[in-house]
């Protein structure tokens, strides 16, 4: 299996077996349950999942699913997903051909002793402070999954951290996507 070559200015730490499926679905109740149920039923693994209304259409939502293509052949996952009637289009993006971003929020208890190292950590990661009170600070990082991984690791040095990540969203890297990547249903 090939090791993905890093792109200039950005290292993706996605294991090579992870694949990103950008799935356009009808914005109807139960659609997420249909997708999650199908994955569970077939024994396919979901690594992360993010859902939001797509573009300006209230009619559709976009689900970004990072799948473990080791749990089943990618074509099986795509084929079974494709059969869900509410799934409109599936774009399969190899990690090396994706621009991926994820949002991390963390609240860290602060005191005199940890402020300086914390500010160093945040500065190094490019994280922003979005909320403060005398005993705590909430920070945000919007970055590559790898950058979020790194900040999460760095924050392990601090006590009392509450941390949330959104799961990634992705779009094809410009100039890299080939027509074969587009699995439009037609």
């Amino acid at each position, binding site marked *: 299996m090939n090791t993905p070559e890093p792109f200039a200015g950005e290292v993706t730490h996605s294991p090579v077996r992870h694949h990103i499926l950008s799935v356009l*679905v009808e914005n109807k109740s139960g659609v997420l349950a249909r997708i999650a*149920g199908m994955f569970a039923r077939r024994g396919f693994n979901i690594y992360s999942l993010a859902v939001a209304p797509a573009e300006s259409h209230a009619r559709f939502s976009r689900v970004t699913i990072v799948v473990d293509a080791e749990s089943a052949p990618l074509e099986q996952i795509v084929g079974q997903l494709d059969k869900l009637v509410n799934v409109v289009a599936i774009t399969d993006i190899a990690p090396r051909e994706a621009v991926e971003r994820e949002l991390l929020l963390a609240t860290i208890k602060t005191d005199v002793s940890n402020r300086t190292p914390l500010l160093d950590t945040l500065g190094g990661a490019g994280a922003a402070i979005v909320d403060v009170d005398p005993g705590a600070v909430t920070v945000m990082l919007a970055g590559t999954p790898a950058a979020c991984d790194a900040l999460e690791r760095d924050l392990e040095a601090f006590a009392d951290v509450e941390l949330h990540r959104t799961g990634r969203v992705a779009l094809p890297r410009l100039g890299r996507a080939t027509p074969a990547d587009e699995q439009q249903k037609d």
Partner: protein
Amino acid sequence: MQLTGAQALIKSLEQQGVDTIFGLPGGAILPVYDPLLDSSIRHILVRHEQGAGHMAEGYALATGRAGVAMVTSGPGATNIVTPITNAHMDSTPLVVITGQVATSSIGLDAFQECDITGITMGITKHNFLVQSAHELPRAVAAAFHLATTGRPGPVLIDVPKDVAQSTMEWWYPTSVDEYDLPGYHPTVELDEAAVARCVALIAQSERPVLYVGGGALKSRASAELLAFADRTRIPVVTTLMARGVFPDSHDQHLGMPGMHGVYAAVMAIQRSDLLIALGARFDDRVTGKIAAFAPEAKVIHVDIDRAEFGKIRRPDVALQTDVATALRAWDAAGAAPRALDGWWREIGQWRSEYPLVYDEPEANGPLRPQHVIESIARTAPPGTIVASGVGQHQMWAAQHWKFEEPNSWVNSGGAGTMGFGVPAAIGAKVGRPDRTVWCIDGDGCFQMTAQELVTARSEGIPIKVAILNNAYLGMVRQWQEMFYDERYSEVYLSADLPDYVKWAEAMGCVGLRATNVKEMNDVIDEAHAINDVPVVIDFRTDSSEKVFPMVAAGASNDDIMVHPSQRGGR
């Protein structure tokens, strides 16, 4: 025109050409049963909702049209989950309408509330919870479209009581564009390059086999299959789901493959150099141990459902289309294998060495189940439809009945649903009233759904039921005999309890019994002479009879066990 949701639902079903609904009313579906009184649609009142579902399946399998069932919420809905599963496994077009509690009560654990769309998400092709009366016509039109196109399957429409009671301005979608199914495109453009690769593989092959599955029936490909087989001389096997799509009397038909397949059909697949799978899904009951399945064969896989490609066996060429289209394309391209004389000589040897055999019955009984089936088949009118339950009797029926036309075999394949036979036979007879319909059943299966014979009698549906009564859950008994050191655990049922003749009579049917060959011939003649009421025959068969050939679960097809009388020479 202002209609209630209930009226709109019935009118939508009429628009779809529905002539029969199998169902049973209850609280939440009550509003829909009122306009049914004024409709031309026939309603068959079942005695258990499972019966409604299997009848709708039997109707669909015998006619090729979608079957329709209607039940109430809660337990009414859950009782039809088994038929929905069965239809899902066998890709049978089914539209199931369930009542639901009022929208204002959903989620509040109301009386007879259950989340049937949630429960059936994984066992339907799609389902709808209808939110307004205006949406009902669209849901019905979309449900029939989904159930009958592409890979067919069951679709469920859940109708809350207040939706049925509220009013709407009548409309009906006139084109697929109005179905609001932006993600559903069942037809795919034929991949000409893949067709060419198929033709090339066929041209190189010396030991090809047409492995024909249920998809061939669904795409009504009988004529195309016959033409292609006649022209190419390629041997044909038909799976349990495909029995009847290719005439058993055709000399290229090797029979059924798989766990209880005909020896020549199993071995032809095992030794083939090209397996041409037509609407077949490499079920474990066909493949046996997958690593040892047709080891030298290249595979052409034709299926309307692309998720079948590579699910079990990676194809050398995948052709996503329906079976009839594929065969027409290959015919147009003149696809033909090399000379098959050597291949046919090899197959001829398997055929003559290991035909389907069974021990002849002794004059004073007990009966041989295979002999009973052959005796019914010999005297039944041409075009007779056969339904069965699940187990030994099903395998014997699939082996020993000679099927000559499509939609004449009504059976539960993928799900293996015991009790399928009686209600499915009733549904088949409703769909094809001109045909004689036999249900070949087991005593275990019969006891699961026999009460639907009350439905059959009261609705005037004269089916014939042959119970192959061996007093056991026979297939389980066979496995315990062969694989569990004859330790029989919970498989004995008794031949006399219940008394099947009295039970049949209590349900308004004619009840007959046969314990030896003479009686067998007499009661079969008697049954064929009765055409106004259902007939049930209790055939007393040998408990120790087993289904052969057999490939043990998980074993290689190469390790097929033939009938004991054929084992000397091996």
